[in-house]
């Protein structure tokens, strides 16, 4: 094939412009995204978790753009997956928060009569705020800090597979098959979800050595390398230092105090480990460290963020414009979204006046920015997003600021949950975009244009499933809405005055102090690890160790050419197998 590269466009034989932001990419992405949104709302209500859409969208877009239409470019497919995952973000944000309002309203008529308009406004405001806050953070996280974003790397590896050569395609495929095989075996009960090595050698539950059978976690660790070690350190701190110390020093209720007999020794250990240790100590402390670490990071990177904002303004005035959306869009987006959130707060309840509405919207906006930073950083370093924890803090903040108004708290909580999901997703997509050479501005424009689509789809599906009442919730075994039920329970306890303030403050102090160390995101990583069960952390740590050993033995080039496609295959294989397993489970009842 020969190209006449010097012919001007109007002459025959000239090549068409390089396909990037096209109608085909956006429309296919919207359709895929809308279908995923509807499906993932249902999955979240049934199983309590949602699935990321980027890898699914990249593969489907591949099939349609390159396979069927025979004209998609690598960059164009990236737009498709950016759009699809951007639309799908609403599914988790809505499904994790809004069901709590339905559930609480069943027993409380003052809550039951909430309007849908403030929810819509809040969700839209949160969607746009999440994208807008990423504009100045992109440079910091992707270009300067060089956060890994393992899923972003996996998607980029997938997008680049046509040009990576047969060897890399085989490695990607091999990783995919290994992860698929293991996950299918797990789903069928042939292998356990966790390998409890500590239990086999007689260690107590509160000092575990457990490995989660998850090749996605191993893949994320393989891609992170030594940068992920602080995350493992946090897990070790929580489970091999704090928990054994707490038990041996008598900081937990003793067996004698609880009247435990020998027959209940295992249940006692389980109570100490999970009710007291994990939920009472480690998780809230971890959340505090996360917040402190993020605040520290914001302060430390303020000069860089300021330089990024200056750069945005300068670039938009220069000839040829900028590669990303301008600071005008950033500031206008923040102001408009804030006004939308203010309107949502005012409309959510008659008890919310102008002053309180301004306050709630303002604090909600600031929290969304900070939590978005935390979640983006955490997923950038480990591929794990503490969205539910950050949303919980958001709802708690709104609850106190609104004077205990449940409807207003959850309505604004929806904005926070969707917004921080958008932050993490957009950042991962921008990472993939950087690796394949996409123009950040076009990705941001595309996501901006479609961010609203998933919101009415997700809310509509929720109302449909609720029906005349009781369509989901703790009393419905088919659709128990675990996250929404948990949030409802937490709000009930907030109404009674419960909040682990000591842990948040203590953890915040630790996170701030850790932020002084010249290791980027140390506080965030340590806090995140304490927030999670050790089986997840340890598995990820094995991946990090694997990267370091292989890097020492074979060098950087081998890592890029061999390890990256294999690890990407692990992540993609498990994601697709999980999705398929969910579909099969739902179809067969």
């Amino acid at each position, binding site marked *: 094939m020969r190209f006449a590269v010097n012919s001007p466009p109007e002459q025959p034989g000239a090549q068409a412009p390089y396909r990037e932001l096209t109608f085909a990419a956006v429309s296919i992405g919207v359709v895929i995204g809308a279908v995923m949104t509807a499906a993932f709302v249902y999955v979240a209500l049934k199983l309590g978790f949602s699935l990321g859409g980027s890898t699914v969208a990249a593969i489907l877009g591949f099939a349609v753009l390159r396979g069927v239409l025979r004209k998609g470019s690598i960059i164009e497919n990236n737009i498709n997956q950016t759009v699809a995952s951007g639309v799908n973000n609403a599914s988790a944000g809505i499904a994790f928060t809004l069901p709590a309002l339905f559930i609480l309203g069943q027993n409380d008529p003052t809550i039951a009569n909430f309007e849908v308009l403030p929810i819509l406004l809040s969700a839209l405001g949160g969607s746009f705020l999440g994208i807008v806050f990423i504009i100045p953070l992109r440079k910091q996280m992707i270009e300067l800090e060089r956060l890994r974003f393992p899923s972003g790397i996996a998607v980029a590896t997938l997008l680049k597979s046509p040009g990576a050569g047969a060897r890399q395609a085989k490695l990607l495929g091999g990783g995919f098959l290994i992860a698929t095989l293991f996950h299918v075996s797990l789903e069928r009960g042939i292998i356990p979800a966790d390998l409890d090595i500590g239990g086999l050698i007689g260690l107590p539950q509160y000092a575990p050595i457990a490995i989660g059978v998850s090749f996605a976690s191993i893949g994320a660790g393989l891609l992170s390398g030594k940068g992920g070690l602080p995350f493992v350190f946090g897990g070790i701190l929580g489970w091999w230092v704090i928990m054994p110390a707490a038990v041996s020093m008598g900081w937990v*209720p003793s067996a004698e105090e609880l009247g435990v007999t020998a027959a209940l020794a295992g249940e006692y250990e389980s109570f100490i480990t999970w009710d007291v240790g994990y939920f009472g100590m480690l998780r809230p*402390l971890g959340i505090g460290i996360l917040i402190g670490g993020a605040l520290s990071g914001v302060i430390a990177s303020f000069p860089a963020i300021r330089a990024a904002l200056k750069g945005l303004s300068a670039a938009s005035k220069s000839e040829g414009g900028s590669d990303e959306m301008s600071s005008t869009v950033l500031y206008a987006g923040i102001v408009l979204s804030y006004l939308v959130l203010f309107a949502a707060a005012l409309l959510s309840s008659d008890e919310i006046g102008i002053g309180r509405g301004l306050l709630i919207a303002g604090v909600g906006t600031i929290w969304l920015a900070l939590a978005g930073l935390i979640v983006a950083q955490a997923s950038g370093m480990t591929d794990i997003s503490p969205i539910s924890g950050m949303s919980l803090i958001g709802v708690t903040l709104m609850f106190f600021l609104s004077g205990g108004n449940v409807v207003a708290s959850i309505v604004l909580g929806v904005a926070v949950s969707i917004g921080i999901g958008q932050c993490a997703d957009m950042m991962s997509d921008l990472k993939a975009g*950087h690796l*394949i050479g996409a123009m950040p501005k076009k990705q941001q424009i595309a996501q901006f244009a479609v961010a609203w689509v998933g919101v009415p789809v997700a809310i509509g599906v929720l109302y449909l499933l609720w029906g005349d009442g009781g369509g989901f919730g703790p009393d419905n075994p088919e659709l128990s809405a675990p996250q929404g039920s948990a949030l409802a329970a937490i709000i009930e306890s907030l109404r009674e005055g419960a909040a682990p303030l000591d842990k948040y403050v203590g953890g915040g102090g630790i996170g701030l102090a850790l932020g002084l160390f*010249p290791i980027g995101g140390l506080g965030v990583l340590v806090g995140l690890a304490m927030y999670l069960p050790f089986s997840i952390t340890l598995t990820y740590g094995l991946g990090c160790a694997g990267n370091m050993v292989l890097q020492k033995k074979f060098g950087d080039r081998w890592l890029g050419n061999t390890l990256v496609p294999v690890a990407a295959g692990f992540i993609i294989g498990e994601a697709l197998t999980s999705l398929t397993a969910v579909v099969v489970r739902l179809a067969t009842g």
Partner: protein
Amino acid sequence: MKHIALLLLLVGVSLCASFGARLSPEMNASMVIKGKAKLLGLTTAKAKEAFCAVREVKIAADGCKGDEVPKPAPKGDVAEAEPTFGRLLAEKNAAVAVIQERGGIGDKDRAQHQAWVAAALAEASPAARSQLLKPVDPSLRLSSWFDLAGVLFLVGVVLIVTGALIARKVVKAEAMAEPSGEEGGARDFGELLIELSEAVEALAGQMGQMAAIEVVTVADMERIKVQVEALQVDSFERIVASRNRIQARLGIGGFAEVFGPFSAAERRINRSWSALVDQHWPEAFASVTKAALDLKTCQDTFERVSAKRA
């Protein structure tokens, strides 16, 4: 010194995290009440399960697995009175009495039935106490925790901060050290940047010449793609790997100014790779040309920032 900083970090964070996690006396007391109720509840559940497995006569009211339990009557519009310990205990004891008075108990299931009744009786009072448990006031939690563990927690924080300050000094000193210049040693960022800039400019020139002389074939594009890959792995990634050192030398603001155009150049080189795979020569050529310009900007910025800091 690095090891001292690391030791201070490990000891400090272990200390303040352990004492930070410690529960206040009020929270501990609350956990005792909840724990008793939960564990005795588990005992009752186990005893019930054992009875259900051996019961001679099956009665729906037992509530065993498979029994059809009648739906509870809907709550009326009348507001329920605030529960008290006495009322809750009476309700639970009444439920135990129903189990106790259950007919149809024979020799084969008597022992299990009695164990179930005993467990349910033992559970009644702790369960009632647990239901009435009010959450500990957040500010009381905070003040109580601080009274108990605050001093050692703060000692830990001081150790972390001291370790952090030492570590920052060590990192800065390492970054300001003269590059060794030997093979495998550290190379000055400025030198690497010039090399990279020249290589990209040369590639842009080569691509321009190819387009000017002849039409470009797929094999040509594949050849250029290999050169682009070499730049990505051998040149760009080497500079990225040394970014912490560069940041320590230029400061955060200066680093951001320099690495911005560098990253833009890297992205354009990545774009040229994608365009070559998609066989779009004009885009590939344009991207390499723009990358060369970005690297020139990066060089100029680096010289300006370095001069300012000198």
